């Protein structure tokens, strides 16, 4: 068996075990209604986690995404309120802005050889600050097009509603999987995660790839911002504080190594679903406080990291054993 797939299998196994535990306690939890809500509630997180997975696969990190989501919501709300532009045009404008923002950060990281952690940290301040500059209040969005987006859904068997934003998330994961695993860009990302110097010697265009990676993450954060604004129906500059860390946690729970070079986009999907399931369980239980979510997610993080560490040691021991 391919040892690279082991973390992914472990992630899926834990998700299934969690599902079984939930089913035993609350049989109604395994309905399409709950599934529909799970997809809708975690749509923005899932979309941004796709971008984060690609960034982490390349060995980088993007701390700016939470702020970019908040900026997107405010940008859309203010543009719709103050200009007569139709919503789709605003969407396109926003995606251009956030993609360019990501590309600029990628350019700085490559051009100045600065650590991604610090550059995206500055980006985080900048995006949040830009959101404050547009408005400091929560701006409601009333737009007929928005109403339509929010109400659009597909009725699954069992009366569960697969909303439009849930579908957008599933689509993002599909696109992310194709990009990461089936394109030249994806191969470059993995190579870069394995080591910048080796990647360069292999002929990867490091600069172009780095800019592309952060541009992709910026695009995904913008898309996530659109979805979040559809979900909440407003733009608020203080929204989604700390989402970047939740996204990173989802990626790690999904079995991707934070050192880069190893992991799967599909694992991140399972990671997001696992985190959503924990929250749903706490809602179903009713007596547990919400802070248990944080503690359980912390515990899961630890479990996965130790698991990966063990697997890594196991496989490396086997390889060195084979050489000897």
């Amino acid at each position, binding site marked *: 068996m391919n040892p690279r797939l082991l973390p992914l299998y472990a992630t899926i196994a834990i998700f299934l075990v969690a599902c079984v535990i939930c089913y035993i306690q609350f049989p109604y939890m395994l309905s399409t209604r709950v599934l529909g809500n799970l997809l809708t509630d975690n749509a923005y997180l899932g979309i941004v986690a796709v971008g984060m997975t690609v960034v982490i696969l390349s060995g980088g*990190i993007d*701390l700016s995404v939470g702020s970019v989501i908040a900026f997107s919501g405010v940008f859309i709300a203010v543009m719709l309120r103050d200009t007569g532009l139709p919503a789709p045009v605003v969407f396109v404008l926003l995606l251009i802005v956030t993609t360019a923002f990501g590309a600029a950060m990628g350019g*700085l990281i490559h*051009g*100045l*050889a*600065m*650590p991604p*952690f*610090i*550059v995206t*940290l*500055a*980006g*985080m*301040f*900048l995006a*949040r*600050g*830009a959101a*404050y*500059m547009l408005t*400091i209040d929560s701006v409601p969005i009333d737009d007929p097009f928005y109403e339509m987006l929010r109400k659009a859904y597909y009725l699954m068997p069992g009366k569960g509603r697969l909303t439009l934003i849930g579908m957008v998330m599933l689509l993002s994961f599909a696109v992310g999987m194709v990009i990461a695993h089936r394109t030249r860009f994806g191969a470059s990302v993995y190579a870069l995660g394995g080591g910048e110097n080796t990647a360069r010697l292999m002929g990867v265009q490091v600069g172009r790839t780095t800019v592309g990676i952060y541009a992709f993450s910026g695009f995904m954060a913008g898309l996530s911002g659109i979805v979040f604004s559809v979900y909440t129906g407003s733009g608020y500059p203080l929204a989604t*504080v700390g989402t970047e*860390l939740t996204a*990173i*946690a989802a990626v*790690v729970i999904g079995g991707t190594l*934070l*050192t880069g070079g190893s992991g799967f986009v599909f694992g991140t999907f399972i990671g997001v679903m696992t985190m959503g399931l924990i929250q749903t369980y706490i809602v179903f239980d009713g007596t547990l*406080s919400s*802070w*248990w*979510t*944080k*503690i359980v*997610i*912390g*515990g899961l*993080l*630890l479990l996965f*990291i*130790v698991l990966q*560490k063990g697997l890594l040691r196991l496989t490396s021991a086997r390889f060195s054993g084979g050489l000897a």
Partner: protein
Amino acid sequence: MQTLRRLAPQIVTLLAVCLLVTLFFPGFLDISMSGGRLVGPVIDILKRSAPVALLAIGMTLVIATRGIDLSVGTVIAICGAVAAWAIAGGMGLWAAVALAIGAGLLAGLWNGVLVAVIGIQPIVATLILMTAGRGIAQLITEGRILTFTDPGFAWFGSGTLFGMPVPAVIWIVTGVVMAQLMRRTALGLLVEAIGINRRASALAGVNALVLLIAVYMASGLCAALAGIITAADIRGADANNAGLWLELDAILAVVIGGNSLLGGRFSIAAALLGALIIQTIDTGILLAGFPSEYNLVIKAGLVVIILVLQSPRLATEWYFWRRSVREGPPPATTKEHAR
């Protein structure tokens, strides 16, 4: 003299920021004595920079070992919650302080063991406590904001010692003690050795395991002190908001202080100057009368400028450009390159 040269960029930046603020707000440098305590914007900055400065001290050491500690903001919340819980439970002042510091050391021990013994990447290892820690703090406060009225404990946040606010005294003393401990003994050298190459330093006989754990515990201790100050300042423990995102400010302070995130050479004084620069920018923007909405954008802009100026690649190119200007065009022979 050498120390001064190392600190020069940070001192110049701080002076430039101060000058900039004074241009917008002429009374910036005024200090007066009122009721036995010094009063003025500068004193205020010294007081308000206490949490970030304290965190920056511990963070400098952690970063010098090529690590990072994302959990410190959460540890502030935990220690604040523990202290408030102890005070509210009638355990007395010193028991509360001791318990809070114990909690900080325990958090540091946890991080240190994950990093040094299990060998998890520091950023992930501390991310665990960062996520779970707020839950733990809320567990202690039972989701409420625990308030207390103990004047003795509140002294840590709003008291005065020798005319200076107590938080300012605490961070300055901690910084001096820690810097002396690192530089008057071989400890600093050993920490740097681990950051440059852990394996090599271990082979050379440095007990990297114990030292790494100790460094994370020092970071936890600093966070505990910051937690005590934060809780004492508002006379309550807010598990949700105490120390929120302060770890990022602390890392920024360390980086503005010219310390490399890749470990090795470090300077605690420079990191403290970095913390002062950040706080001066924050306070300065408010004093200068800009709407607080502009705060983050201006801060981000200044940070980018400072970082670009400190960028390693830019520094190298500047060096080569200066050399080529001084020596004229480089000779065409390959002798220079062969060196």
